[in-house]
């Protein structure tokens, strides 16, 4: 799994490539959770390069979102493929996320103050 962190218009963007599953979830967790310091108010997770997110992977996304929510911030997704979107819909995870077609739309929404 390749995990790239960048800033776009002042918003932190984490781009995940590969499969986010039991094999990679710990690595992703180690990289993402430190980004959620108390003064972080927003994060965009880009899944464009992600073909599959397992149950453990979806839980990591939700945990990160809850962490940010608890400090008054927001986590949004971008570039989620249809199949993952569909799985998230059926398993209830979609209720917790706003999702945008690409990074710039996600960043713009976050900058507008919470999508």
């Amino acid at each position, binding site marked *: 799994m390749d995990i790239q962190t960048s800033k776009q218009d002042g918003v932190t963007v984490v781009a995940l490539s590969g499969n986010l599953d039991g094999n990679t979830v710990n690595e992703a967790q180690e990289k993402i959770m430190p980004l959620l310091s108390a003064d972080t108010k927003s994060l965009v997770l880009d899944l464009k390069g992600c073909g599959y997110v397992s*149950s453990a992977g979806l839980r990591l996304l939700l945990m990160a979102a809850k962490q940010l929510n608890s400090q008054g911030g927001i986590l949004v997704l971008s570039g989620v493929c249809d199949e993952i979107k569909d*799985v998230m819909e059926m398993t209830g995870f979609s209720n917790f996320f706003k999702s945008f077609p690409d990074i710039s739309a996600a960043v713009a929404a976050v900058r507008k103050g919470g999508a």
Partner: protein
Amino acid sequence: MLRVDLHPTHVSEDGKYHLRVGKPLPFGASIVPGGVNFSIYSRYATSCKLVLFNKHEQKPFCVIPFKDEFRIGNVFTMVVFDLDYENLEYGFYMDGPFDPRQGHRFDKTKVLMDPYAKAIGGRDVWGKTPDWNDIYQHRARICFDDFDWESDHPLETPIEDLVIYEMHVRGFTRHPSSGVKHPGTFAGIKEKIPYLKELGVSCVELMPIHEFDEFENSRVSPTTGKMLMNYWGYSNVGFFAPKAGFAATGKFGMQVDECKTLIKELHKNGIEVILDVVFNHTAEGNEKGPYISYRGIDNKTYYLLTPDGYYFNFSGCGNTLNCNNPIVRNMILDCLRYWAADYHVDGFRFDLASILGRDQNGAPMHSPPLLETLAFDPILGKCKLIAEAWDAGGLYQVGSFPAWGRWAEWNGKYRDDLRKFLKGEPGSLGGMAQRLQGSPDLYSWEGRGATASINFITAHDGFTLYDMVSYNGKHNEANGENNSDGSNDNYSWNCGWEGESTDPAVNKLRMKQMKNAVAMLLVSQGTPMILAGDEMANTQWGNNNAYCQDNEISWIDWSQLDKNRELFNFFKKMIAFRKAHPVLRSSGHFKNRDYMGSGFADITWHGQKAWNVDWSAESRMLAFLLCGMHAKGGTVDDNSIYVAMNMHWEMHGFELPKLNHHMQWYVFANTDAQPPFDIWEPGKEVRIENQNEFLVGPRSVVILVGKESK
């Protein structure tokens, strides 16, 4: 907090895995800090090994014996550290005596599934042919138990206010005409929630969703050439796991989340969920059946055995679960608590529940400990408990099922008596009068009340509603048993032609009979249950036992909805009418007197003459009046409701009971009239010209509302 037990104390023989003694409770596999806690009971096993597989792989990657110090009493328990538990499947090898006469059937070569497995792989996608060479067919998995329910809570709707809708998860949306994205799945039902809301039902009862094997006893039908499967699933592989093949995400192992999401969404829309649970037997069959779990773990504990060590067969399915053995009793309790607490399930319907009241020799008990435990359990305290109060061993307990004020019953007598009355059978008036009142003849003892009665005309067992008015006899040839399976006591009438008919008169009568049936069901005291698809006249072409038909015979054909809008509309408005009128939903039985000073008793009986019923055997006419001031024991005010039922083949005038001053009769439904005059919106009933008499058509039901004239 730092914990000492984060540190392993032992290493597996191959040096790869770190271990320590586990916790015996809870049974099963639990995620603990750093690893997984495994715990399994066996009284008679002499040793046990944990077998670990990577998902879908045939060869285990590791076998770890439980060391002597890892056994506490009769429980083997250990923690294995650093497992990729999302990709894990686990089982057990158990060694012990093979001595069938003593009840023991240990076989240390078989990989056995954990009875407490919370997720089970091996049949991840419905109908996908398994690899029969796989030594481990039903594979225990570990699942996350951290589903985010947010503020969801079981709805705790009073049982008398429910309208139950019985469905098969796959059959409900599998037909291409359903139009859902993922046909035949939990997700498919979720897509149909707007439909359920429009119909107005307030509870779905799901036929078995515990993991079962659709390939159990699969074979090709000699008549249709189609594959016959274990479609209904009344045969558990595991009690704690949802059927993976019912989830569109089963192929990703996410069936638990998909099932919970469905329940959460149903709750959000005011719809409860009752599960049909099958604790009377398992999928292991008799001595010729496979080793899946229980037989190889502790045969003598889990099954009722004859003195010679063979399997008692009170279930008609090869074996009988030893429900009143304390270990099995606890497993059943753990299972129900798990579904109530972790899945937010609102209630349970127990298949062949009378077996749950048999002792370890198979004899019926007076106060069965299992049933009493369930009735008083704190976690199940608000769950509906519904018994199918009979079994295949000849025990029939409708009206006498041990209840402790908690248990309701599928009222089989309701079904039979209503069907007899509907077809105009002589001598059916007395029974029908009891059924309309919530069967006080069956349930007035010990104050059980009308809520003990789950009223139904049709259920998965037997004809659909349309078939009940279209077939005199069953047509089960496609099941491959020479039409010898399925009930012969259907009390059905084909309205003059067996099967599909092009005769408009026959079809018109069938439509009317279906409306009559649902009208009577929804004005009866007790809790009504509807079979999914009946509202669109779904047919199984006369098959009254479609347990093995995973095809158009049992899938609901949604194209029928457009053809039968008239019937759907009638169902919908009858349900709305029931909801609008508390006088139809008493929890207790009637007192048959006027305790509100209204001038009318809570219920009064009428016929062609008001206040006068011809109860003779040849009479087929009955009317009753529910006094609105007596609604819910006089605690709420409602309109009065008069229902006239003429099951004679000729039209008859019914003299109407005279209402108090300012009150007038309004017609809500008349099954003899053509749409849109067959039924009105509740509250928008039409005042009738003649307030003294109503002409009720042949084989027709009329429902009037007595309210203040505007």
